[in-house]
């Protein structure tokens, strides 16, 4: 008890000398422990370096066995007919091993006499030179052609340390036509490294960027192999001791048809635009064109900043994937869906005729909402309003239906969200609702905006892919996730078809409503007043469609839209959506022509050409 009270008395005061003594003894003790550990380490090192030196020395001399990773061969990509869309071709490159070169400057200037070397080649080479180790071969020129290879071979004795190497690189036979579907292979960068298993990519230099190449990277890449090799003191491989070969990647078969793809691309001519065609029965994507494209090989071989900037700043915007990421006002292409919605939801007065005088007016509003046809369509019902694309009828319909009911019905056709196609980057478009506007802009929804939405303008946005998906839904009443992959084949195995999943049925209230709308769409193409009758003329089959126009600039109340006077880039975008044959749809299509003007003249003929070719091929297949 006494001792304890003495202790607590001491604890209340800082006894500096006592604390210093504690610390000193502890520090000295710790120092002693450190000395012991130091001696332990030293002992360990003496054990390794002196006692066992001979053993490790021998091991090091015998340590000529190196484990080298071997890159697997990347899987090929075929279209549905088995035509190669992406393959691997040998590419010759000129490599320099710095250690073996006595005078680098002399070698470089000597080489430039034999082989064409650009300034960028030499700059890139110097950059590599700084980062690589002296005994590693550094690439100087990529992509030598055969004459260059031969030319160098003759002069090779003049350049010790310089050699030709061959590597497999990706080659796309259809080049720019397929780049928006396939993507391309590019050098692995820091961001890619975070997403891959580095041990599997140790020998791999390129990785899929964008499109199929990116989305199915895991399937296409395969599994790296290993090779145990014997090397000499310089690190040169003398012989292979053991090999664990790599497993090549899987070959992919796409749903896409390269013939149709090319027809669609040619049909667009010089215009920029997009064509998407889908089999409405299962969502298989037959055509996915975005024009213009760009040469994927520039990226495979390494694009310079200057070239990349030129692509990025080009007014044609070739890097922009219009089919997936181009969001345009859908225009009148929405009319059949909105009409169907109004029928199915039994919107009041939908069965009645409307008199079109060329404009529409809301009660208590002076503003005139104009029809594209200045003199008006006269008396129209829903069917003729679709056939002739009467705007006034749909202003009225929209006014009766209301924006939120319209948005809900459009949503059933996949508008306003991603379709889920199996390549990434897709945009989701926009179907506005009154809530959306309140949240996004903090403003109430105006009735006039509902009218504009009734003809697919205003805030409404959709991608060509979404509209192709939506028209496929109209054709069958089913909603399938669009899919590009049809089958896969592992090396040495059978081709395995992939399943098409995610089928949803669009609710049907009354079948007659659907038949009515489909007949109206058929009349667009084959009817006397159909807006696309020019495109339907002389067709050996019947198809159903709808034209549309996406406004690029808005026209003031008292202004006229004069196509001739307006600069090309301000002209309207032309739309056409369709499916064929009308009685049992097997192909649904959406065509967008940027600044094409009218859907009827610019877009519909493109769809017609694709359909013609499609039925031609079908007939040929049946004949076989």
């Amino acid at each position: 008890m006494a001792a304890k009270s003495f202790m607590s008395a001491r604890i209340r005061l800082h006894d500096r000398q006592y604390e210093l003594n504690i610390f000193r003894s502890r520090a000295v003790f710790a120092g002693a422990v450190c000395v012991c550990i130091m001696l332990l380490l030293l002992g360990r090192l003496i054990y390794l370096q002196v006692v066992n030196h001979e053993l490790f020395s021998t091991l090091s001399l015998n340590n000529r066995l190196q484990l080298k990773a071997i890159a697997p061969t990347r899987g090929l990509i075929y279209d549905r007919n088995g035509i190669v869309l992406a393959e691997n071709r040998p590419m010759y490159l000129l490599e320099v091993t710095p250690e073996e070169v006595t005078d680098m400057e002399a070698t470089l200037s000597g080489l430039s006499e034999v082989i064409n070397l650009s300034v960028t080649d030499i700059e890139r080479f110097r950059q590599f030179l700084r980062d690589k180790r002296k005994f590693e071969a550094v690439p100087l020129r990529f992509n030598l052609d055969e004459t260059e290879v031969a030319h160098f071979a003759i002069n090779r004795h003049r350049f010790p340390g310089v050699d030709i190497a061959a590597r497999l690189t990706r080659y796309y036979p259809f080049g720019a036509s397929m780049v928006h579907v396939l993507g391309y292979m590019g050098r692995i960068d820091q961001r890619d490294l975070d997403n891959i298993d580095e041990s599997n990519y140790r020998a791999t230099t390129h990785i899929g960027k964008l499109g199929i190449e990116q989305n199915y990277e895991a399937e296409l890449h395969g599994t790296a192999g290993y090779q145990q090799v014997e090397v000499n003191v310089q690190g040169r491989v003398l012989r292979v001791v053991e090999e664990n070969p790599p497993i090549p990647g899987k070959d992919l078969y796409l749903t896409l048809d390269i013939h149709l793809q090319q027809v669609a691309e040619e049909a667009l001519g010089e215009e920029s635009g997009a064509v998407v065609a889908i089999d409405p029965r299962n969502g298989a994507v037959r055509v996915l064109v975005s024009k213009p494209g760009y040469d994927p090989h520039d990226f495979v071989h390494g694009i310079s900043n200057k070239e990349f900037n030129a692509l990025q700043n080009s007014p044609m915007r070739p890097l922009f994937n219009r089919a997936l990421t181009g969001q345009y006002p859908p225009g009148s292409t929405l009319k059949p869906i909105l009409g169907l919605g109004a029928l199915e939801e039994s919107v009041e007065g939908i069965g009645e005729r409307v008199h079109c005088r060329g404009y529409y007016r809301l009660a208590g509003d002076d503003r005139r909402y104009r029809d594209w046809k200045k003199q008006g369509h006269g008396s129209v019902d829903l069917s003729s309003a679709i056939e002739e694309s009467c705007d006034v009828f749909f202003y009225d319909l929209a006014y009766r239906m209301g924006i939120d009911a319209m948005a809900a019905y459009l949503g059933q056709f996949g508008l306003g969200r991603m379709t889920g196609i199996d390549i990434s980057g897709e945009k989701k478009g926009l179907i506005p609702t009154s809530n959306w506007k309140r949240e996004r802009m903090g403003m109430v929804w105006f009735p006039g905006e509902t009218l504009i939405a009734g003809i697919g303008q205003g805030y409404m946005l959709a991608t060509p892919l979404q509209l192709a998906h939506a028209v496929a839904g109209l054709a069958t009443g089913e909603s399938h996730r669009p899919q590009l992959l049809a089958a896969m084949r592992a090396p040495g195995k059978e081709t395995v078809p992939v399943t098409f999943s995610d089928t949803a049925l669009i609710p049907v209230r009354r079948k007659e409503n659907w038949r009515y709308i489909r007949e109206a769409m058929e009349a667009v193409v084959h009817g006397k007043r159909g807006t696309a009758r020019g495109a339907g003329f002389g067709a050996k089959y019947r198809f159903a469609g709808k034209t549309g126009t996406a406004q690029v600039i808005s026209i003031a109340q008292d202004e006229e839209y004069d196509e001739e006077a307006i600069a090309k880039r301000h002209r309207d975008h032309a739309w056409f959506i369709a499916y064929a044959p009308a009685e049992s749809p097997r192909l649904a299509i959406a065509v967008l022509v940027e600044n094409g003007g009218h859907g009827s003249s610019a877009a519909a003929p493109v769809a017609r050409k694709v359909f013609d070719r499609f039925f031609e091929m079908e007939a040929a297949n049946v004949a076989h």
Partner: protein
Amino acid sequence: MLHTETQFIRGESFTRVIFRRLHLDPPLLLALLMLIGLGLTVLYSASGQSETMMVRQSIRLGVAFVVMLVFAQVPPHQLRMWSPWLYGLGMVGLLMVFYFGDVGMGAQRWLDLGFIRFQPSEVMKLIMPMTMAWYFAGKPLPPGFWRLLWAAILAMMPMVLIAKQPDLGTAVLVGSAGFVCLFLAGMRWRLIIAGGVAVMSLMPLLWHNMHGYQQRRVLTFINPESDPLGAGYHIIQSKIAIGSGGVYGKGWLNGTQSHLDFLPERTTDFIFSVLAEEFGLFGVLLLLTIYAFILFRSIRIAIRARDTYSRIVAGSLALTFFVYVFVNVGMVSGLLPVVGVPLPLVSYGGTSMVTLMAGFGILMSIGSDRRFSPG
């Protein structure tokens, strides 16, 4: 002018005055410079004579030196005042990393504040000794059981968060910084032994909480030959590199193990093996002598420091520095499992370089703190 003259009269040279004014400790500074010089020499060979890497490393060293200079100017009593707040900030940082940190290279360590990206776990290496010293210096020593328990909890919290990132190496270093403080503060021997027993009995629990790759490392450590192409490969190749160096080494730039790609991570965690291969036992002795000198100079500063706070901070920084050396050299020579701790001030890269030099800045500030000098 007059002032300087009196200095000369008292027998101090001009340079010494400058060192004193800048709060620098010349012997410690000299040892650090020698260490860095040796480190760069080895790195030049290990990197395959890469100019880019040499330039980058030199820039980092320059930055680290400036940081050291700055920290040397902060008097210890100010550090003490800031300690608890820094601990709070550090914990907030770690929690933020835990909930929404940047994931880089498979582990979540970085915190991006918009204008700066940093690793709170790295800063914790400095904050830990400061916090513990602050906690113990407040009341007379030696601390009782409950104070020790609280201190242990203060040390464990950041350690667990860092281990979860997962960054076992830093967790070990931060943890040891904390527990070294408990020891220096005078934790009783029987408690130390009891604590040791408790930790041992908790080992199985720790094992089950380890990531697969961490478990694999420990298993390979016990028997490296079990996995000669996988994780054990590192240790085997490193031992061959060290052992084949012998007494005199294979000569600078002549290490076959490192230059033929047998030695993995040769510029970072395994740079010691390159030194041992090329400079042999002599090179190793030189390196360890420099480290030992730095350690004992720092312990000397700790013992001569003027208050408990400074003593514990200095002592903990000195001993943690040594833990670095021990863990790294032990790891590459096959005495300890591979935990990913760099060789201090020699390994390439590293945020760790800046914190280490900041630590030496603090040590120098403590060493030159002569207000109310007890004489």
